[in-house]
């Protein structure tokens, strides 16, 4: 199948695509929070297919900037829906390939004992702690955390004392190091540590925040790319994604 995209950089992408055709390694740009899961998926995928996969992790904002400037990625697994939608609008993706591949789950985690319990009582006394969140302007998990804090009526007095990370990995470091008492992180980050992340976490009910949809798109169409996207929707993949702490789209 011939590439069907029309874009400012389209012609060049075509050129590069033929040049790198022989390599046949799929380059997948992945949001940092999903990188570990993506690697697990890649391993599983490579065991079933002749295609090779290269995972390039990074922040979604940065990947976006790179893609519109000609980055040689085949597939983009974003951390949100905003960037994929923008890319679609601007004609940088293979039309019709945008879809949700995972839905993030927010937890409130503390590495110390006695701060977080499984019922979420902490929410009432949230303002007594040093809480780390992802920057709500950059990370969907940050937006979700803000909704939760606002719902508990703490946002206004806490807004300027929250410890902000660029992304949830940073929030994880902040909490893990003990520098912050607790933080809003992804479920995937606490359970991917083999369940032995210290302290305790509370899985925040979905009703307290807007679902964190993470979307995937094909940037440069190829048989391999289409094949991988198909795999992403397979039951095998969904199993890996959900054991990693995400919900999968029905």
């Amino acid at each position, binding site marked *: 199948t011939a590439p069907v995209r029309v874009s400012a950089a389209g012609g060049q992408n075509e050129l590069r695509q033929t040049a790198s055709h022989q390599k046949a390694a799929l380059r997948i740009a992945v949001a940092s929070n999903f990188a570990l899961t993506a690697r697990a998926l890649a391993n599983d995928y490579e065991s079933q297919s002749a295609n090779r996969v290269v995972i390039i992790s990074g*922040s979604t*904002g*940065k990947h*976006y*900037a790179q893609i519109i400037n000609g980055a040689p990625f085949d597939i983009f697994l974003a951390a949100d829906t905003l*960037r994929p939608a*923008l890319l679609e609008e601007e004609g940088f993706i293979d039309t019709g390939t945008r879809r949700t591949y995972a839905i993030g789950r927010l937890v409130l985690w503390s*590495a*110390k004992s006695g701060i977080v319990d499984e019922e979420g009582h902490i929410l009432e006394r949230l303002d007594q702690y*040093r809480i*780390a969140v992802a*920057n709500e*302007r*950059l990370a969907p998990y940050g937006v979700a955390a803000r909704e939760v804090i606002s719902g508990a009526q703490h946002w206004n007095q806490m807004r*300027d*004392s*929250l*410890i*902000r*990370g*660029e992304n949830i990995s*940073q929030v994880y*470091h*902040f909490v893990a*190091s*003990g*520098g*912050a008492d607790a933080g809003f992180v992804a479920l995937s980050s606490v359970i991917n540590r083999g369940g032995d992340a210290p302290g305790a976490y509370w899985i925040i009910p979905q009703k307290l925040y807007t679902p964190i949809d993470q979307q995937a798109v094909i940037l440069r169409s190829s048989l391999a790319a289409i094949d991988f996207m198909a795999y992403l929707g397979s039951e095998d993949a969904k199993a890996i994604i959900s054991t990693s702490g995400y919900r999968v789209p029905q």
Partner: protein
Amino acid sequence: MSEADLGALFVTLRLAFATTIILLLIGTPLAWWLSRTRSRAKPVIEALVALPLILPPTVLGFYLLLLLSPARFPGSLIYDLTGYSLAFTFSGLVIGSVLYSMPFVIQPLQNAFSGVRQETLEVAATLGASPVDAFRSVVLPMVRSAYITAAILGFAHTVGEFGVVLMIGGSIPGETQVLSIAIYDHVESLEYAQAHTISGILFLVSFILLFLVYTGKRKSGMMRL
């Protein structure tokens, strides 16, 4: 520039000034010692000073975070003694920046100090100047231009610093959110126009500042070693 960005600018300047001043203060005796000593410890210290350069700043920041955290030693000691945690505070940022920008201050100073001949110090001694007095009245004026270089490198590097601050700062507005992170945030959140504006201002202000410093250096730069 939004109010938040202005706040970040202010924090940045405070941080850069504090870091530069501290670095000049501790860098002076250290660089002097390094330039004069024949101790076997010298290459060890020199290597240690240069080391922070090698690690990516975010990683360095990560380890600093582990160090400063009140959850374990040595951060816990500081916490127990002072009731104060250094992580996510301005003081913590200063410590991180000082470590990270250290080589940029030490190395030019050390090089310049090595260029001051023993002979010159001998003359000062025969004229009644104690070592400290001679350092102040002879060495300092002779290496003025190295101090300018050191201060510029240290200051600029702190302004542009990012990874360490990201890790141990926590972007608390007015306390630890610095300009470099603010710009980064704008880029990440696709607010390119704001990013351009702040970068442009930063560039222009820096350029004018640097230009003035270098012009001043040229004017008074007649005296060589």
